[in-house]
């Protein structure tokens, strides 16, 4: 590990991507992710990488499609409205079985919304987002360090399963500075010569990348293959963190990302008052840790989901808990982040 440096989340994830060997980056400016694109503009030329500001998010994601098809580590980033525009491209990248990393530094919505941090793009991120039968692995960091660590993790997952991977941060994680350490070594890129365009291994080793299957039976078969890959991803890549689990708590808190770090402080604060809460934080939002949440909810009187939205992940929590105990929701819209004191009092209301 190197030295600790104080960095914004936007910059840390960019730096980690470069350290992980990403040399192609295409994006379009949008707040609150601008430091990411600006960091890439500054740093990519210094490592002989490609930085290109696209004319739009639609163009940017298609540049990613092109670069990914040629087998290079490629990344793009944006924030909510821009990610909406990228959905067409993400659907094609998923269907074409190409590895790529998309960072979403989310903001308030719907529509132009605002630039405050929100978790209201959970549905879009975890349910495919674009058209068609597909999913995108989604990683949810809750510290700047984790944001950075997820860049190489995302490339690894993308390359192992040939899929686009999304890192779902938010405006707060993007803008705030925290200490970060970068590891000395990063996972090497997986050899793409089996499928990449322009990578013939023998003169007649012709590579085609395609998402068109006119024959319904062929598309059916392709989609079934894709879903077999998804089963593998579910088996191998589901990640979560638990906190204060062995405290004999009667209540379980479920939260991810920014909401989870605030919730953690609330758990600590209530512990001092003698109230024990267990907490589970999904790190992958797709695949969702259904089994772990179900396990954690076992024997609890109540499960409380906390999100910076009107309630999206709570639907997955309900699927996991499956009626075993009541699932309650604490949320906030508009990009207003909870303070720990606020969460403490809201939790107290729910458990009294």
């Amino acid at each position, binding site marked *: 590990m190197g030295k*600790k440096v*104080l960095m914004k989340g936007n910059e840390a994830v960019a730096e980690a991507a470069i350290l992980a060997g990403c040399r192609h980056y295409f994006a379009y400016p949008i*707040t*609150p992710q601008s430091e990411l694109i600006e960091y890439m503009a500054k740093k990519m030329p210094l490592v002989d990488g490609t930085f290109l500001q696209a004319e739009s998010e639609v163009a940017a994601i298609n540049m990613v499609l092109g670069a990914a098809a040629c087998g290079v580590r490629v990344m793009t980033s944006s924030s909510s409205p821009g990610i909406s525009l990228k959905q067409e491209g993400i659907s094609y990248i998923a269907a074409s079985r190409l590895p790529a990393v998309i960072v979403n530094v989310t903001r308030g919505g719907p529509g132009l919304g605002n*630039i405050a941090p929100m978790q209201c793009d959970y549905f879009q991120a975890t349910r495919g987002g674009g058209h068609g039968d597909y999913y995108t692995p989604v990683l949810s960091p809750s510290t700047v360090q984790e944001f950075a660590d997820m860049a190489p993790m995302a490339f690894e997952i993308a390359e192992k399963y040939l899929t686009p991977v999304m890192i779902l941060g938010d*405006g*707060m994680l993007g*803008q*705030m*500075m*925290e*200490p970060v350490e970068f590891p000395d070594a990063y996972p090497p890129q997986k050899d793409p010569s089996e499928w990449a365009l322009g990578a013939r291994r023998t003169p007649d080793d012709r590579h085609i990348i395609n998402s068109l299957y006119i024959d319904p039976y062929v598309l059916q078969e392709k989609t079934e293959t894709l879903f077999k890959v998804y089963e593998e991803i579910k088996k191998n890549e589901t990640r979560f963190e638990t906190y204060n689990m062995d405290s004999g708590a009667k209540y379980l808190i479920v939260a991810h990302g920014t909401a989870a*770090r*605030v*919730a*953690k*402080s*609330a758990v*600590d604060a209530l512990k001092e008052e003698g109230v024990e809460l267990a907490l589970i934080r999904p790190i992958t939002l797709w695949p969702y840790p259904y089994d772990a949440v179900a396990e954690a909810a076992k024997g609890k009187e109540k499960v409380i989901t906390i999100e910076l939205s009107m309630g999206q992940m709570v639907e997955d929590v309900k699927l996991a808990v499956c009626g075993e105990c009541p699932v309650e929701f604490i949320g906030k819209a508009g990009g207003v*982040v*909870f*303070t*720990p*004191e*606020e969460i403490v009092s809201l939790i107290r209301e729910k458990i009294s």
Partner: protein
Amino acid sequence: MATTRILCAGFGGQGALLIGKLVAEAGMAEGKFVTWLPSYGPEMRGGTANVMVVVSDKPVGSPIFTKMDVLVALNQPSLDKFAKDTKDGGLIITNSDLCGDPENKDKIKLAPVPLTKIAEEIGNVKAANMVGVGALLQLTGCVERKSVEDYLSHMMKEKNPALLETNMAAIDKGASYVS
């Protein structure tokens, strides 16, 4: 000191964000948990800039807070906006060259410091924020002077040794003014 929450605010260009950055850098060097969260976006336009800093012995949950232990207000609009969010018994450091007294001055500890004047005396008006850093370190002890100096040295010893000296002088003046 378990956790100190500090809000620094001023006009864009007054260097409020940098005050916060120095505290965060120094805290990190001391092995503490720190967060630094600026106001961002169009609200910065021509108006005020502010930053929330948390320095703690424990991992920081929310980097956002509604009540702070310390406010550093570099101008009157910032003081007007944030004074009331300072905890009772908390500390408000003002640039007394540009600010009056806050309404809640009886409930908090007020440290009016002529940041601009002191910086002018040193010969660099731009170092007014550094005078503020000095006052902040002296009154809160949230981080060590040495850690701030180490960071500044690291940043500018080679590139601009004169500025390093000015900044440290400003910090020391700020500290002695309030001690």
